[in-house]
């Protein structure tokens, strides 16, 4: 019986992969996380599946959690690679191009604390209301507001050409 997950897949997989890619900075990891999220939400008992009132919300929570879990593992691997000199070299991009701007965004996002990054991505990429962002991350709405404010400020600074040059 495929319908229970296939409909949700059609509705949510693109946004989930995009959000998780921005969260992790790694699309392959993000896709793995989305696969795991669907498996977690739709791979349980029939009882659990029947209790899915809002599959999109459950999938978002599962995908965000999976991304965080897998990113931690990936971080450990990266540190080992760096220690043994096997990490890939940083790319050299032409300043001012869209590709370079996205690269800067990616690095700026990576520099944010995880919850700050998650708030910014959920709020501004998935367009979730603050209450839903709070629900996904299990934090108060007030924290969502402050994390969002600080996260956007950090991104703005990182993406501003003038401030980049000054720094």
């Amino acid at each position, binding site marked *: 019986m495929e319908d229970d997950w296939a409909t949700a897949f059609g509705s949510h997989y*693109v946004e989930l992969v*995009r959000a998780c890619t921005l969260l992790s900075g790694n699309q392959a990891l993000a896709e793995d996380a989305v696969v795991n999220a669907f498996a977690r939400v739709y791979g349980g008992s029939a*009882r659990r599946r029947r*209790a899915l009132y809002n599959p999109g919300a459950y*999938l978002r929570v599962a995908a965000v959690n999976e991304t965080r879990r897998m990113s931690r593992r990936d971080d450990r691997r990266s540190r080992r690679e760096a220690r043994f000199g096997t990490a890939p070299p940083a790319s050299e991009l032409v300043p001012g191009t869209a590709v370079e701007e*996205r690269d800067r*965004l*990616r690095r700026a996002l990576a520099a944010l604390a995880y919850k700050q990054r998650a708030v910014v991505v959920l709020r501004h*990429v998935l367009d979730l209301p603050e209450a839903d962002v709070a629900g996904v991350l299990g934090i108060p709405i007030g924290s969502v507001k402050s994390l969002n404010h600080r996260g956007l400020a950090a991104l703005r600074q990182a993406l501003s050409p003038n401030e980049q040059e000054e720094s």
Partner: protein
Amino acid sequence: MTGEDRVEDILRSHAGSIEPGEGLRERVRSGIAARRRRHRLVGTAAVVATAGLVAGAAFAVAPSPGRGVDQAGERVEMETADDHPPAGALPEVPPEDALGRARWQDIAPPPVEARSSPAVATSDEHLFVWGGSKEGTERRYADGALLDFRTGTWEAVEGPPGEPGRAGASAIWHEGRFVVVGGWNGRSGGGAAPLAFDPATGSWEVLPEHPSGDKTDPVLYSSGDEIVVAGGFESPAGSATATTGALDPATGAWRELDPAPWPLSTSAYDHAGSGAQPATAISSGIVTMRLSLAGQDGAAEVRSAVLAGETWRTLPPEQVELATDVADPASVTALAGSDTVLVAGLSRPSQAFTFTYQSDGTASWGPILELPLENGDDHMRMAGADDRWFVGHYGTAASVSAGEGDGEQTVVPLPAPQTSSYDLLAAGGAVLALDWGSPDSNLNAPPRPPRALALTT
């Protein structure tokens, strides 16, 4: 355009440029199918016979109001009532990164008298508890209860007519019924025939006795149409056995299988002090280990055997280096649906290691882990849920991750129910701590009623 708008613009533009790779749908389909297969195995493999014999204090964690917990395991505080899980539903197992703020939440208490050694088993839908004894007396119970995971409510279960009650039985979910095997009914020479309880109808069927007599605390494993019954004690005061048989509950027929390479049972408590401890887990077969401790230098030899199909396969012995103050190993649990077993309760403070049985007949061993538990002994309780274990001992508890990919494992301290007389179970999507209480006849602890808690955040 404000700075904020520009950032949002770049974010959206970047997100819009990300196109999911081909084949994702197929990967999702496979992932869901694999997990559903694994979930079915959980129902088959979840069997525990209890040995909660030692008194302890009451649970220290106060009841707390319910909170929405989503299907994916993370706390969700939704704004609309429609998004909450059904009232009474059990809290979902907390995700690893939320375990630091986990707590135990009361659920409805079991509607049974305080007792020791009831048989416990789970299906996808229910937790079944039956039998047991009244500590300090000769009384054995023939009643029990059924917890509905969907509603979080209990229903009392009366035993079959004429059943005198028994303690030390084992139970398993098999082909739509809970099957109780073995146990001590106070009559030497048997009479503790297997019983099958159908939760849909509330009816019992009495099945034929094992030809070589019923045992207490036998290890049960659901294998196709049959239930494999391995080991168990001849009587409460008797020796552990290695006999292995298979019962087909549909026909009542028994078959003898090759005996296990050493005596085994579900009760680590009763093997304590033997110096060569058998510890047994249910995975995709029966995995049993025998740890011979070589003095106080921390060296131990682990011999292991796996019931694969109908024959026992003994694996090459493994040397492990444990802490110097080594106690008898106490308890083993299996990661349901896989072949990885956590062995814990090896020393003071407690240590653990993992053992993974490969299909080619070899095994791999994980590193020695230090658990944040005061002791590792025969009162430890363990439960497997998804990719990690939960281990409890008196007032301490921990979660151990299974390790993935590169085999890394983590240990997370948990709050713990302050009692020793309890079972840990991973069932119904939750981690449950079940305290079977202490009767007023128990001279070692104040009376307390049975209680059930679920781990939540």
